[in-house]
């Protein structure tokens, strides 16, 4: 997927002027936090489970080589195949190789962010194979040639009229004047259309929420059942998974599952949590004849042992996204690559480079809500700060920002000069703003005053006031 992350500012400005997007965001913004809060309140042990979940992931990452090899050995014992892929190119080649070997014409797909990361649909299409997205949200996005704007609610940015318009335009064999009385009618049309695709597909591709080393099992979590149809009906099942999805045992997986749905949609448990181990057994009457796991690295192993390793604990619940004021204002497409919101602002620079994605860690108010709701207790703001440091060290920011930071740093390292400079500035602002009490424009603060007034200062600094009150208190 081609990144537009360097244009974050332009993307965000465009998003804020998009009436349809703002309508969708306003409708949806409050829903996820309220549902999560209710689910968490209903499980008194939730905080303890967060620590347990973090511990499981930290243990796994510290022994990731062992658990990956164990997982692969157990997949093979169950008759499946593991394809180790260092890069996105390796993974695309492996998927295409399987599809071509079995003569696949159509491929159904469950929702997978790794698939977005690989751009697998475009790759298959370029080789004459038709991919069909089966998650309802992903399906309409494929019809509209748009990427997802959210990692668990891909069509977050669309309104009902967008659905109706896209279905009329794409399902041209149905009467053009048909009426969609309610949302269910849209759903039913998609269900009927996709059922044919499920039955006709030669290969099914799903993602994985977890890979269980103990049993060589991949786990998917869905509400629609599309992932299950995708991995059950075709002759071949391909699992796309990145290396950090590994967990040691079934019991470890269960503990993480108790956190996942509650943090994501606010459900106690998702409708379908499915454990797949190898291909159809001799006596089975349904299920795929081949089972493949594409084990993707694509930059993740380079995060191990760095200050960004905690990001590999992420279970992709989207709680950070759902609670982020920046995401809630600009939507997912502004971030310009696969992963939006706080988790994307940390992960994207790791995967496509800080030169491409350096703007993302800056797109944060550092309110800290993301870290406070993260079930894996990932210190997201802290890691965004690390990326800002790297961006500065590598001279990637605009010259104006770099000069400003350098000037500030010079003063910040010289407390006496800092106090003098702020005293002069505050006195000046206090004097100038005495009459109106606010400024509607100020040099070097155009970004602030463009949207609101800056209140005038009282003419003295916090330091001065603090010192005065300390003296008064002692007296």
């Amino acid at each position, binding site marked *: 997927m081609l990144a537009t992350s360097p244009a974050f500012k332009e993307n965000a400005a465009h998003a804020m002027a998009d009436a349809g997007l703002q309508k969708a965001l306003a409708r949806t913004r409050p829903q996820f936090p309220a549902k999560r809060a209710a689910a968490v309140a209903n*499980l008194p042990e939730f905080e303890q489970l967060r620590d347990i979940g973090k511990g499981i992931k930290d243990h796994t990452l510290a022994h990731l080589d062992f658990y990956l090899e164990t997982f692969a050995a157990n997949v093979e014992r169950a008759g499946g195949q593991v394809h180790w892929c260092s890069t996105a190119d390796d993974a695309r080649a492996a998927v295409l190789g399987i599809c071509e070997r079995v003569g696949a014409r159509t491929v159904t797909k469950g929702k997978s962010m790794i698939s977005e990361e690989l751009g697998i649909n475009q790759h298959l299409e370029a080789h004459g194979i038709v991919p069909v997205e089966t998650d309802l949200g992903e399906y309409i996005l494929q019809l509209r040639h748009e990427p997802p704007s959210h990692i668990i609610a891909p069509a977050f940015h669309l309104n009902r009229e967008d659905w109706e318009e896209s279905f009329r335009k794409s399902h041209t064999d149905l009467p053009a004047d048909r009426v969609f009385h309610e949302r269910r009618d849209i759903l039913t049309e998609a269900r009927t259309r996709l059922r044919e695709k499920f039955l006709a597909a030669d290969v099914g591709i799903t993602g994985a929420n977890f890979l269980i080393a103990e049993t060589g099992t991949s786990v998917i979590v869905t509400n629609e059942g599309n992932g299950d149809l995708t991995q059950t009906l075709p002759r071949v099942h391909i699992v796309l998974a990145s290396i950090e999805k590994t967990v*040691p045992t079934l019991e470890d997986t269960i*503990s993480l599952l108790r956190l996942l749905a509650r943090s994501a949609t606010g459900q106690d448990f998702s409708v379908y949590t499915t454990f797949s181990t190898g291909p159809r057994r001799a006596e089975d009457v349904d299920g795929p004849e081949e089972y493949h796991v594409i084990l993707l690295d694509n930059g993740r192993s380079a995060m191990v042992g760095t200050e960004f390793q905690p990001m590999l604990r992420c279970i992709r619940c989207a709680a950070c996204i759902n609670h982020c004021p920046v995401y809630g204002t600009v939507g997912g497409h502004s971030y310009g690559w696969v992963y939006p919101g706080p988790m994307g602002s940390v992960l994207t620079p790791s995967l496509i480079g800080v030169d491409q994605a350096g703007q993302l860690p800056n797109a944060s108010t550092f309110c800290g809500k993301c870290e406070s709701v993260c079930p894996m207790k990932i210190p997201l703001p802290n890691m965004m700060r690390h990326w800002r440091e790297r961006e500065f060290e590598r001279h990637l920011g605009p010259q104006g920002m770099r000069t400003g930071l350098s000037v500030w740093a010079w003063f910040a390292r010289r407390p006496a000069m800092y106090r003098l400079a702020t005293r002069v500035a505050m006195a000046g602002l206090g004097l100038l703003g005495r009459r109106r009490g606010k400024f509607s424009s100020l040099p070097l603060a155009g970004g602030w005053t463009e949207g609101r007034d800056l209140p005038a200062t009282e003419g003295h600094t916090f330091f001065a006031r603090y010192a005065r009150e300390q003296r008064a208190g002692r007296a």
Partner: protein
Amino acid sequence: MSKDAMLGAIRRGLRRGPLPRDQVLGLQARLAAHPRHLIPGRSRVARPEQIALFIRNVEKEFGSVVRVPSPAAVPGAVADYLAAQNLPPSFAMAPHPELQALPWDERPLLQRREGKAVASDQVTVQHGFAGVAETGTLMLPGGPRRPTTLNLLAETEIVVLRASRIVGAYEEAFDLLRAELAEPAGGMLPRNVMLVTGPSRSADIESTLELGAHGPRRLHVVLIDDDDAARA
């Protein structure tokens, strides 16, 4: 080769080579013991309350439950449910001995076919391996006696479950799975194990919940009261 490159990069990050033998043995022992973590208190209740919790949770997730006193009452309960929902009296049924042993002949109007589901099936009857009270979740392992497609293709799925098979937490259901299905198969899990909590749904259209996305629109549990301790 990608495998060596990936493992090598992970080890460089961890600032070590391959794990020494004693540590490998320690990790293998953890896998073999697969220790449980904290189990939430909500399902640690007396048997009758556990069954009630299971039923409450199935209903909360838009499923339905009917309790019957004995296996002999199952065909009648299935017939009554189909009639009440205005569904045809025919279904695909899991070829499980417990289901095959039910007195279906007492309900001659019910037409049943045994085996996996096909696209035209409107109703399926599945055998429930276990129920988890914690969230009203059914454990449905696939296999020759419980085809996976029965959980997916029809608009209505009926699951026949014995109350004695309801446990509190997921961990207990996985213990049953390990003991009864994995261990006889050399430790290998069944190819497919579904944990099902309510009927299929989607909130992709304007974040508004709609039932029956791709899987069943209705999920109905016929619960056989075979557990004396479970009766309230």
